[in-house]
């Protein structure tokens, strides 16, 4: 079966981020989306630790460890960017000022519930960071994840079995096999990788899917 690579997934998400958008990219795979934002589009990247207008990683040896991103990696500030304290940063996130937030996930439900902070395993030390604020605060929350676990189980589910991060907060799910809209009306398929049929996708996912009209990238 055809599968999108991580870079192809990142490029696919980047296509849907329009000029002028205020965007937070979560730790891990979503960070890669920044590499595929077209240079001719002005997009504002926000980092939860207190910067807006985040630029790429500095050259080796040029790191300033007081200029980092949420993953604690050294970054740069674009000309015109700015710094602020944590309460202001989370006001941007929780207050609905960000247009798009892109997060990784363990599971997403067809109604848009998100589980991405805790496996719930006994003995695991829980850590939540900004995940719950990000999930519910942005105008649109996108998820990027592999559609299936290593055991072949769908991560798009009827009801999340992992502990929840937020209820009904995800609007779109980008996976290596298909792109879905999720929400109160259930899950709809926007795109599938070449060679994958709707019936086969339906069999893999196991929850009812609708066929959506393909969304036009902004």
């Amino acid at each position, binding site marked *: 079966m055809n599968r999108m690579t991580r870079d192809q997934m990142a490029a696919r998400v980047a296509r849907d981020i329009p000029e002028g958008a205020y965007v937070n990219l979560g730790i891990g795979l979503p960070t890669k989306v920044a590499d595929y934002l077209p240079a001719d589009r002005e997009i504002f990247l926000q980092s939860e630790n207190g910067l807006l207008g985040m630029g790429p990683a500095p050259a080796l040896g040029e790191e300033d460890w007081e200029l980092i991103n949420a993953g604690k990696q050294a970054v740069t500030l674009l000309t015109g960017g700015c710094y*602020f304290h944590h309460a202001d940063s989370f006001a941007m996130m929780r207050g609905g000022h960000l247009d798009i937030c892109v997060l990784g996930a363990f599971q997403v439900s067809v109604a848009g519930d998100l589980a991405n902070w805790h496996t719930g395993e006994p003995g695991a030390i829980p850590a939540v960071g900004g995940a719950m*604020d990000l999930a519910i605060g942005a105008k649109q929350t996108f998820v990027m994840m592999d559609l299936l676990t290593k055991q072949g189980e769908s991560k798009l589910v009827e009801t999340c079995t992992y502990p929840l991060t937020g209820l009904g907060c995800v609007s779109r799910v980008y996976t290596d096999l298909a792109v879905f809209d999720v929400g109160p009306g259930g899950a709809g398929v926007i795109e599938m990788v070449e060679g994958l049929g709707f019936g086969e996708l339906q069999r893999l996912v196991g929850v009812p899917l609708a066929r959506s009209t393909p969304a036009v990238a902004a």
Partner: protein
Amino acid sequence: MIDKVVTDVEAAIADICDGASVMIGGFGTAGMPVELIDALIARAAGDLTIINNNAGNGEQGLAALIREGRVRKVICSFPRQSDSHHFDAAYRAGQIELELVPQGNLAARIQAAGAGLGAIYTPTGYGTLLAEGKETREINGEQHVLEYPIHADFALIKAHKGDRWGNLVYRKTARNFGPIMAMAAKTTIVQVGEIVPLGGLDPESVVTPGIFVQRVVRVAAALSVAHAA
């Protein structure tokens, strides 16, 4: 003459006693007041409640305080990291209590304390494990969780420059929790890279007004440059 500048880090933290609650600024190591924490370790105060975003990185600062067994409880959002081994060990051994708070709620609760609010209603965490047992309320059609302010006896923070009245500016993302912790603690102790004369900070650009600061101590910038996480 009002002069909040103290001579050294030892004098700055000399009244932090056993059982104190202490906010410590920093996101990872950016903005962590390492020299103030080192002085606190040397003072041997224990049974502390620490409020920080994390629970220590590597061997320095908060990680060292935990390693030395001085911390009874940590209130934070993200304890588990690749280099949080001292917290992990203490937690698994049942030697340290953890109150896990979503990061934005942590910031809002600290800010609420500084602003004199009795509580806040926040949508963050509604319907999750971290809101279990908490009062909720529907406001404008959206569900919210009641969360209480986080106060502290002391705040230890790091700023870029300060003056003798306690006005502060910060440097880049080292600002993070500094301004809100300064507001929330009874006694705020700041290590700065440089002390400037009154008027040396542009009044339009002061980030923390001196009313929120009780003590300022200079720590040479060369010593306090944050290291890679």
